[in-house]
């Protein structure tokens, strides 16, 4: 008789779940000589003598012999004799079936509490929160959970439907924190999903028996055996991968690359961010994004990202749904996100979900951790420039948790060491705070509060003081209407401001200030009617208030004439509807439509220009004054988000997507890098919204049990109304900025190759991108045809780019990381000759962006040492030692020309002109 333990287990538990008690008193009496008898023969003998049927794994028991004589024993007594002193367990159910297992025990009964709960309609759950928390305490109990059968729904209630909805939260068993982006999927099937930012998932699964697998980066993979009768909930606790101490492991969501419908999504956990060597030894969220295919930046000290040929302002950077306008500290040496607070980052670069909008290139979604639910913990770190600390824990009860992080620079020594007088007389500092508070009212209602504040100030050449800060706060309420409908309601406020102050000369003392503020609200719903559809719909609205610039005197003696550019107002609203439709398990379609509407509002003074003339100060014809709240100009349009996935085999898939996007707020930057003095500008009566469309196609294949992921993605993008600037444009304090900007059309295309190994002693990724991004300005109305109206490269066009990020684990305590980056130098416009015209010396420049700065190459190395791995230890320390820019290559940051004694000379400025050793000490307590 062939026995299939797994299959029977399910039957067993179904019968158990009826809740009947085991009656052992009616059992037959057994006698026999079982000396030196193979287990298989022993079972045959018993089956002949009784009505019991045995189920076991022959592999487990093929070398097992029984050796005893039984006389008038019950079956239970016989089996006890046979197995006492061994690791073999047995269980007998109501249908006279005997289950024999080695090393683990089968329970044929669930705790009565669970069974009772299972009968409550609408709130059926296999394991309650309390159960799971208690069980998670030991490794053995986790195994027990994995082996137990969870019953979802009530048998016989929903018999008409073939599928049911399973929802639940995935949490960290130790801290109770939500685990985002965990993959939850059924074994041997293509049904699966990913948890949202709250750790919440919704799956449509056929009725019957399944093995549900859950995996997430940095956590141990786990599984649940489930039997589905109807809709229900299942919360899952995952164990931390302990040897890592949150810092040395990548365990991928295996398979998700191939199976996800989305394409062009890059997901990186903080664990892999932390092990990559960085300048000054500090883990940096944005710097790691730069090692992903399709992402570049213009220079070393810049955190402006260029994603697939988009400009830096075309990225929506969200920190727990708060828009961060300036994601950098200290001229871009650091990113605005405290690595101890971040849980993971997701970068959407081709199929952008319809719930996101307002930017053309990408969405970078940075998710903060939710606090430890069980106990107060903290961490701290110190590097050559910054110190940081985090505390987290429950507030009052396990229902409320918080995480608070703070970071500050403590030294100006870097600037003093820069070999340039302008910098050595300078000082710079920054700090940031972030706070997230989570409160779970009950299983259906949760509240999330996020606060973020960052401040940067620097003084260049001890005269002019620059200061900028981000302030963000939002409140989210998540409500589970039913297992099929989940709603998220959000209201928040984001603000970014900078000011420049000079007080040295009291006659000229001035303050130059700028800010952008937005109040926003959003409602987003996810509806999962059945296994084939997942519908997302919602609406949002953003009210913008910008102060584009004010120049005011400081002090009573200042003679500065105040110059204030009118404030700008606008409202951007959108509604969206999207559906993910799994036509077959191997073929999925995801389609979304977003309709956005932008109104530019008064009070405002709008200049009218002579039609058909270049827009210059000369051609201003009229000015029109609008009152407060008057609608000056409205732009609107649909945005399409389409993507499809076809699985060719369990490890090979192809995906295609088409996206259109619209952007109503633009950054005006006449300098090459993203600098704090860049101004944001709303679309107005003259400046049209940027629009873009992207076609992309990808091929994904995984090898070696999904531990090696490879992908090839190609894309083609078109952009309209991309802003470029006239020669010598004045952007600051310009009351009619439309005279200094030009509309361009852009196109970008590229191919991205990626190989990623997520597990093993050696892990990491290597990628290569070929991409171009070109714009042209052929509108004669602008007055000036840049490069004769032909396509020219943008400032951030870098055709070849390759990255290697690798980590090798020598032991659990010692690992080495290496980071290699190469890219073509960015384009530059060079002055190529000097001449005299009209009595003055002038420079003749090449065509715009005709030349390039030298190629970029950098190699970094670091070693990480963990102090020890005792779980009970109160303080865990780790040390990172490394070298940034190992080869000491003087990568060009900027090429500039300066007039010295009437002679013009060219210089190359490198930010890191040498190899930089660093050491960082981190503690957790």
């Amino acid at each position, binding site marked *: 008789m062939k026995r299939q333990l797994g299959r029977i287990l399910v039957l067993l538990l179904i019968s158990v779940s009826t809740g009947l008690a085991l009656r052992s008193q009616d059992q037959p009496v057994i006698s026999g000589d079982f000396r030196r008898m193979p287990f298989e023969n022993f079972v045959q003998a018993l089956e002949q003598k009784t009505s019991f049927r045995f189920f076991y794994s022959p592999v487990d028991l093929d070398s097992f012999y029984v050796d005893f004589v039984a006389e008038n024993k019950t079956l239970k007594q016989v089996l006890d004799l046979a197995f006492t002193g061994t690791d073999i367990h047995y269980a007998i159910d109501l249908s006279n079936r005997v289950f024999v297992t080695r090393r683990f025990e089968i329970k044929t009964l669930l705790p009565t509490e669970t069974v009772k709960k299972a009968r409550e309609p609408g709130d059926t759950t296999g394991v309650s929160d309390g159960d799971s928390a208690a069980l998670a305490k030991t490794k053995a109990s986790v195994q027990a959970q994995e082996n137990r059968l969870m019953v979802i729904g009530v048998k016989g209630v929903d018999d008409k439907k073939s599928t049911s909805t399973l929802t639940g939260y995935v949490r960290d068993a130790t801290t109770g924190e939500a685990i985002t982006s965990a993959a939850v999927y059924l074994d041997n099937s293509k049904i699966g999903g990913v948890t949202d930012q709250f750790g919440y998932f919704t799956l449509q699964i056929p009725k019957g028996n399944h093995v549900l697998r859950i995996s997430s980066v940095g956590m141990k993979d786990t599984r649940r055996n489930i039997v589905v009768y109807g809709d229900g909930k299942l919360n899952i606790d995952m164990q931390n991968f302990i040897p890592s101490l949150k810092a040395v492991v990548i365990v991928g969501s295996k398979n998700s690359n191939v199976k996800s419908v989305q394409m062009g999504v890059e997901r990186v956990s903080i664990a892999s961010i932390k092990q990559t060597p960085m300048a000054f030894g500090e883990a940096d969220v944005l710097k790691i994004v730069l090692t992903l295919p399709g992402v570049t930046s213009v220079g070393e000290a810049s955190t402006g990202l260029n994603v697939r040929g988009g400009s830096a302002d075309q990225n929506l950077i969200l920190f727990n749904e708060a828009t961060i306008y300036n994601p950098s500290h200290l001229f871009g040496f650091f990113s605005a996100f405290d690595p101890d607070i971040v849980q993971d980052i997701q970068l959407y670069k081709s199929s952008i979900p319809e719930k996101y909008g307002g930017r053309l290139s990408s969405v970078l979604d940075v998710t903060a951790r939710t606090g430890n639910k069980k106990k107060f913990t903290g961490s701290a770190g110190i590097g050559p420039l910054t110190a940081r600390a985090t505390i987290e824990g429950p507030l009052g009860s396990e229902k409320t948790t918080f995480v608070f992080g703070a970071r500050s620079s403590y030294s100006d020594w870097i600037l003093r060491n820069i070999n340039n007088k302008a910098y050595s007389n300078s000082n710079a500092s920054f700090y940031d705070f972030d706070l997230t508070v989570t409160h779970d009212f009950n299983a259906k209602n949760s509240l999330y509060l996020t606060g973020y504040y960052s401040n940067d100030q620097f003084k260049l050449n001890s005269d002019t003081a620059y200061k900028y800060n981000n302030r963000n706060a939002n409140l989210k309420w998540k409500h589970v209407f039913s297992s099929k409908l989940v709603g998220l309601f959000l209201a928040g406020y984001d603000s970014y401001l900078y000011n420049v102050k000079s007080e040295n000369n009291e006659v000229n003392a001035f303050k130059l200030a700028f800010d952008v503020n937005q109040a926003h609200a959003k409602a987003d719903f996810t509806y999962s009617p059945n296994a084939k559809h997942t519908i997302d719909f919602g609406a949002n609205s953003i009210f913008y208030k910008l102060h584009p610039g004010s120049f005011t005197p400081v002090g009573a003696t200042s003679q500065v004439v105040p110059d204030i550019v009118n404030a700008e107002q606008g409202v951007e609203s959108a509604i969206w509807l999207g559906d993910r439709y799994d036509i077959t398990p191997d073929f999925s379609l995801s389609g979304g439509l977003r309709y956005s509407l932008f109104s530019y509002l008064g009070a405002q003074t709008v200049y009218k220009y*002579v039609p058909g003339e270049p827009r210059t100060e000369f051609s201003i014809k009229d000015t029109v004054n609008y009152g407060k709240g008057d609608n000056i100009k409205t732009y609107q349009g649909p945005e399409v988000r389409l993507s499809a996935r076809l699985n060719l085999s369990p490890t090979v898939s192809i995906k295609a997507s088409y996206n259109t996007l619209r952007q109503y707020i633009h950054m005006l930057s006449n300098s090459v890098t993203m600098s704090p003095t860049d101004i944001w500008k709303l679309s107005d009566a003259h400046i049209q919204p940027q629009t873009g469309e992207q076609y992309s196609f990808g091929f994904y294949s995984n090898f070696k049990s999904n531990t090696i992921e490879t992908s090839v993605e190609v894309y083609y993008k078109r952009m309209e109304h991309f802003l470029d*600037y006239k020669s010598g444009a004045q952007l600051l304090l310009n009351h009619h900025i439309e005279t200094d900007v030009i509309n361009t059309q852009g196109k970008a295309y590229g191919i991205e190759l990626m190989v990623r190994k997520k597990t093993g002693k050696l892990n990491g990724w290597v990628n290569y991108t070929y991409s171009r991004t070109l714009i042209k300005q052929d509108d004669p109305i602008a007055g000036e045809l840049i490069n004769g109206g032909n396509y020219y490269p943008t400032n951030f066009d870098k055709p070849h780019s390759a990255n290697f990020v690798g980590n090798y684990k020598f032991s659990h305590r010692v690992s080495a990381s290496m980071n290699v980056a190469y890219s073509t130098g960015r384009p530059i416009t060079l002055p190529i000759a000097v001449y005299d015209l009209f009595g003055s010396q002038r420079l*003749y420049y090449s065509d715009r962006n005709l030349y390039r700065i030298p190629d970029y190459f950098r190699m970094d190395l670091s070693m990480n040492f963990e102090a020890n791995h005792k779980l009970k230890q109160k303080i865990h320390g780790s040390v990172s030692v490394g070298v940034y820019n190992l080869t000491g290559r003087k990568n060009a940051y900027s090429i500039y020309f300066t007039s010295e004694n009437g002679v013009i000379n060219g210089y190359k400025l490198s930010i890191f002109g040498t190899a930089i050793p660093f050491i960082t*000490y981190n503690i957790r307590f």
Partner: protein
Amino acid sequence: MKIKLCILIIIVFSVTFSCKEKYDPPVVKANHNYLVVDGFLNSGGDSSLILLSRTRNLGDTVTSIPETNAVMQLETDGGAVSFATNLGGGQYLFPGMSLPNNISYRLRISTADGKEYLSDDMTVKTTPPIDSVNYTYNDKGVTIYANTHDPSNNTRYYRYEYDETWEYHSNIFSEIKYTGAGNPPFVYRTGDDWIYVCYRSQKSHKIYLASSAGLESDVIYQFPIQFIARNTEPISVRYSINVKQYALTKEAANYWSNLKKTTEELGSIFDAQPSQLKGNIRCLSDTTLPVLGFMSISSVEKKRIFILRGEAGPWTYGEACMVHNIPPDSFHVYFDLWQYEAVSTHGLANLDGAQASCVDCTLKGGTLTKPDFW
């Protein structure tokens, strides 16, 4: 668990970060040698001076490379209208021409290296007269404005230049001149060798553009031309400005406007993006070869005004100067070695003297020659 204070180890490496290196990309070092055409063609009967030169390399110490052996002519569809005279040093002079404004003209240049250059078709723009040049003043200084209008609404784009000239005086009037020999060792100055009254002239070197393109009628009202800070030399005695007005085509206005905007200040991390300018002159044998400058034909209108000290509010100007009474045994030291100038005598052996800069107005850059129009 309570949070404990922890002792942290800091090790700071002393390293040098940023570095600046000389950088000369090959394209910057290449000898481009592009032709530069500077000037304008006067259609109003006056002669026209055109300067030809070559671009220099960045880092060159040479201040100018004139194009000396070129041949230049103005032509129409019917052939050459006028030839320029080569004055040497890269200067070419067209004699006075009266050019009708109903036909188009081209400037043809043949350079010594055998290349031929031709301008685009140019039409003659007639410059309307300057209505007035006036000024306003406040405690900061004096601003000078130009006003004009074109009743036919045809001109629209204007460019201005100016020459300014002013009379100024040295602080101390010198009535005698030390001669070093003879007895007495000085002569009285006559009006011819006074060094008290000087005249200084300078030309505008910025580009002044005005436009009425956005206006209903073609009027330029109070276009600011020049600003003179209060209590400076130009209005210390008498000041004069001669404003020149040129009508421009739209294309020419664009060229000059872009040239004006292109920044000449370089060198910081937050540099603006400059870009290229395309003029209206091409090389016939290689149309991709850049030629710098923009040629246009128009008449010139001029208007001169004078401002006397006191006409623009109170004006104080002058340096503190000391007069020393110098005995004969110190004449050599003061007048020969220390470059003092003798100022006056009181009929005694001693002479009054003062530092040359207080006495000799030419040392401040002016000339003693009175301009014709003064």
